[in-house]
Structure formats: structure tokens, C-alpha cells
């Protein structure tokens, strides 16, 4: 099973809870502001992501989702 980790950067309020909680140090806060004036989180090292969904658990804004995708359609 392959997973796609996606952060909705306009839902994110840049609180940092996910960055702190990630066991693989994948996430960082971006220096690019979003449409609401927040600096959202992003995957700085996506290749290290194990899709444990701990970031999703911590996120108060459901800004992070993880989708199951088929092998043939893995997005870069």
C-alpha cells in the first residue's frame, strides 16, 4: 500500500504541533506565508515520512491528510 501525505497550506495555522510530534523529523515551518497570514508546515524531508499519521493526530485543523493510493499512480 502506498500513501500520499498532503498538507493543505491554507488550512494550516503554522502552530508547529506536527513539527514537534513527527518521530522522523520530516516537517518544518515554511518561510512562505499562506493566504491567511500564517506560515504553514510542510514536508522538508518527505522521503523519511512513514505515514504514521502522528502529525494528523496532533493537528487541530485537519490540515494534514494521508490518502491511500495505488502503486501505479504514485505521485512524486
Amino acid at each position, binding site marked *: *500500500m502506498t*500513501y500520499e501525505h498532503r498538507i493543505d497550506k*491554507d*488550512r494550516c*495555522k*503554522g*502552530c*508547529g*504541533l506536527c513539527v*514537534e*510530534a513527527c518521530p522522523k523529523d520530516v516537517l518544518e515551518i515554511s518561510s512562505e506565508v499562506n493566504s*491567511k497570514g*500564517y506560515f504553514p508546515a510542510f514536508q522538508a524531508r518527505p522521503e523519511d515520512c*512513514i*505515514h*504514521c*499519521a*502522528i502529525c*494528523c*493526530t*496532533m*493537528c*487541530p*485543523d*485537519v490540515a*494534514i*491528510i*494521508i*490518502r*491511500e493510493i495505488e502503486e501505479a499512480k504514485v505521485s512524486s
Partner: protein
Amino acid sequence: MGKAFQRPEALAENHTHYCPGCTHGIAHRLVAEVIDELGIRDRTVGIAPVGCAVMCYNYFTFDFQEAAHGRAPAMATGIKRVRPDLIVFTYQGDGDLASIGMSEIVHAANRGEKFTTIFINNAVYGMTGGQMAPTTLPDQRTTTSPFGRKVLDTGMPVKVAELLAALQTPAFITREALIKPKHINKAKKAIKRAFTYQMEDTCFSLVELVSTCPTNWGMTPLEALKWAEEKMLPYYELGELKSPEQAGR
């Protein structure tokens, strides 16, 4: 390894007005996940408090009522008594539940009204700008205790879960936290257990959730989580205080 994760159906799509890092968002999502998993959305009625979560009805996709300050347990009583088949929960903060609404929650719990209360304890009045709450810790500075809460003047913080657990009527009373992922996972289990008791018509349930208020504590969201862990957890101990099984239910 890995797993999928998406927004529960019981949670609305819109962005919340809550501050960055506010644990209301986590609590809302847990309640919505539980409602989805138990398949009860079409017979659930939530009751919103007065507090930061006054408009929490905007974030859920099922029937909701908006209560006056502190009165949600009375409204829940009204609903459950006339429509016992509906699943009813109140979602309340410290001012709402432990100050103005103290009589309503104690009596509803004592009568054993079979609804569920999610109690967000963040040791401060959030919506009105950070005043002292009954749950504010000793020496904690708030806008109405600018020199720190003076216990000799205003007493010790109220431990709501212990207070309600002391009542003789069987109930499910527990306290969890929204601080670390492991706490949040336990909190979800507690919420699910509470709603399940209601589905089985067993007892009143209260799940107290130690939460943060970064804005009114004057901290970043991460600092607030740390403060909650270091300062609140020693006083507001986590774990189950009372269960209906103890009373043989």
C-alpha cells in the same frame, strides 16, 4: 507500514476560528471521529457552550443547539428526557461548566442523566480574554489575577472530575489530556467509551480534557503544551475516576 487519515464526516469542512495550536480543534475532531465510527451522526444532537467554542456548531455536520452560559447540562436533560433515543452531548469549557454551570452539571450527573459531557479544562477563560477560572492554578497569572491566583483569597482550583466522581450515582468520569499523541489516543478511547455507554443507556459520562490556551497563557502553542504537561498534569491527574462497572452496571 502507514495508514490513511482524513477528515471525519461529522466534522465540517470549513476552517475554524480557533487560535493556532488551540486544542479545541483536536477535541472537536476526536468527537467527530467517534461519532463516525459509532455510526450515530443522524441521531446525535450536540449542545454548544458559551466560550471560545460558542460557535462549535459551525464545525459539526449534525443537529446542534446553542446553550446559555453553563446551562448545557440542563438543555441536555430536557432533550434526553423527551427523546431518550437521541445521542446527546454537551461540549463545555471551564467557565461554562465549573463556574456558572456548576449546579447544572452536578445535578445532571447526580440524577444520572444519560448524556455525555466533553469538558475542556484549560485553566482560564478563553473567549472573554483570559480571566481567572475556577480551574486556574495557584499563582497562575490571568487578567483578573494579575499578581497570580491567591489561594488564600480565591481558594484552590476545582477538580471537576473528582467532584463529580464523589457523587453516589453511577457514572463514567475520566480525565485525559490533549498534550502528546499518546494522550490524544487515550482521550479518543475515553470519548468513544463515553458515547458507547450512552448508546447502551448505561449512565452519565464526563470526559475532562486537559487542554491548552496559548493565546491567553501568553505562550506559543508548543510552549503551552509544555506548560500543560509540567504544571497541569501534576494537579489534574489523568485516568479513570469512576466507571459504571464499579457500581455493577
